[in-house]
């Protein structure tokens, strides 16, 4: 045996840990530092002192509470709509064979790629005051005023969000449905279960993790939706992102804007944690 074999090799410095430094620096510069600036702007007054009172007064304002309630209600309603539409479409696309079903699924998928304002613009052409629907109704019934106004209300925002975000539910559901064991469905049918019972007792429980993950993602996205709400410009429909925009751009009240932004960030991170927890817990 040679000396080389028995002599302990000198310890070499381990620099592997340094690989984490570049992403941490990038994260710090692009996210954490701006976040710190927002938090500071929210809590520090014009005189440069901590101003918790100012922060709390923003949170107690009528405008903030209304925006918070609007944001929550619209996000919940849109998510419920996305789930209802997504589950229905996914069931049809996965289990009701018809020619062109793959094309339809891909067409729905393309909504993910479209900018949100485009859907809103299309809705304006369809359901707006001078849109096709109102035009047809006004002409057909010789009306002096357009009869359909829902687009300029919270319902218009919800409908647009459902249209834009349903693919986020549809895609994981289709993936989950494709994994449902076909023999479970067949055996259930032979045991006497009619189609609706099979959907309720066999298919949907198997797809529950995907539905929860997709729904959570929708909730997260709709809470932060800005473009659709701004573009529709519905009267009295102010959500948190829109209120931040108003405070910062229209009123130049940066402390208020940042205070509301802090709440919005906390809400988003809370929902994201919930989404991750649900996805991990349910295997999504």
């Amino acid at each position, binding site marked *: 045996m040679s000396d080389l074999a028995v002599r302990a090799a000198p310890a070499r410095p381990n620099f592997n840990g340094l690989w984490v430094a570049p992403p941490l620096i990038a994260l710090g510069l692009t996210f954490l530092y701006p976040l710190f600036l927002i938090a500071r702007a929210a809590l520090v007054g014009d005189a440069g002192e901590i101003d918790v009172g100012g922060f709390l007064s923003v949170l107690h304002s009528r405008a903030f509470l209304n925006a918070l309630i609007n944001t929550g209600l619209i996000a919940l309603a849109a998510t419920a709509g996305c789930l209802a539409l997504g589950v229905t479409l996914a069931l049809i696309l996965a289990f009701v064979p018809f020619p062109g079903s793959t094309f339809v699924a891909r067409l729905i998928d393309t909504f993910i790629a479209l900018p949100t304002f485009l859907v809103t613009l299309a809705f304006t052409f369809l359901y707006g005051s001078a849109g096709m629907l109102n035009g047809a109704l006004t002409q057909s019934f010789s009306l002096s005023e357009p009869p359909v106004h829902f687009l300029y209300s919270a319902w218009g925002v919800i409908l647009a969000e459902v249209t834009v975000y349903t693919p986020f539910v549809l895609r994981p559901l289709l993936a989950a449905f494709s994994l449902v064991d076909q023999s479970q469905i*067949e055996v259930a049918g032979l*045991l006497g279960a009619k189609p609706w019972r099979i959907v309720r007792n066999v298919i949907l429980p198997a797809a529950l993790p995907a539905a929860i993950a997709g729904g959570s993602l929708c909730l997260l996205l709709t809470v932060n939706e800005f473009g659709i709400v701004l573009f529709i410009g519905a009267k009295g429909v102010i959500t948190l992102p829109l209120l931040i925009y108003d405070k910062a751009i229209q009123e130049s009240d940066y402390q208020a804007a940042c205070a509301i932004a802090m709440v919005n960030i906390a809400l988003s991170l809370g929902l994201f944690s919930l989404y991750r927890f649900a996805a991990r817990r349910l295997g999504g």
Partner: protein
Amino acid sequence: MTSAVLGAEAASARIAAQQLAADSTVKFDAVTVAYRGAIVLKPLTLDVAAGEILAMIGPSGSGKTTALRAVAGFVRPASGRIHIGGADVTDLPPYERGLAMVVQNYALFPHMRVADNVAFGLKARGAAKALIEERVDDALRIVGMQKFLKRYPRELSGGQQQRVAIARALAVRPRVLLLDEPLSALDAQIRRSMVEEIARLHADLPGLTILYVTHDQSEALTLADRIAILKDGALSAIGRTSDLYRRPPNRFAAEFLGRANLLPVIVEGNTRKDGMVAVRAGDDRLVVACDGAPSGARRLLCVRPQHLTLAAEHGYSNRIGGHLREVLWQGELTHLIAEVGDTVMRIVATRLPSLPERGAPLDLFFAPADASLIPEEAGV
């Protein structure tokens, strides 16, 4: 008075039993199935008696599973009709056929406990709560899984899951039980024990008609009253299990159902009064059961490896001369490979006298009743 009442009850029970038995017959009436224009099941006509176990065997793509799926209602026949209990069910959806099925991968509902899995069919059929509890208890007792009713399928072994799947099928008291390769996912030891359990189960439920699809001939031989062998989407052979094994009607049936030695022979002379006929294999003259072939016809002599011996048995034995090529010891059995002319023959023995050297001449003996003649063609 009492005896009259008892007599009436017995009569009504007998009528009910007859009715139940009549309800569980299956009839394929020239059933064909096609996928995208390609015929995968050629016209199949077949009757399954009430309480019978019919095994459908065949290689992959033979149409056996398709035939079963047609009975279940999962595929619609391109032509022909399917009758269950005398009623035409061809146009009925699966949930109205009164059947149950056990499949290879168990198909248990993973989010339901064992009890809920077994109760599923009863709930789907709108059974009363008390009846559901009684039937679930009964079905789990039959398969020995009473202690596991609160477990989820993932907490059970493969064999236990298959028992639950069988219990789920039995709980609805199906007219016909469809078994589609139910033991294929189990390892050999559990499979053997499950085959015995299914045999015991059928002994306990003699009125239950079972259609059993498998590619495992030993399962079919152990369980089936009759076996249907399918090949290339057509029925190649059907018969009582022992008859089909001892007297296969064609080469495919002989080779698919167990091992068979097939020795080319020429028929010599006419059939004797005892149904036997003389045939010539090379220099050897043999006597075997006749299949009606005329003198001079070419046939294959089919004799199973375990029916060949190295010494003449009591009574008359045919003798074939050959040479020993190989000895394969397999523990309980020893396989001898011999050459008879150009044909390789296999002998399976449990006990052996001293063996000749490899390449040495070897005499093989078999009783006339243990061999049959089959056409040289492979069969349908």
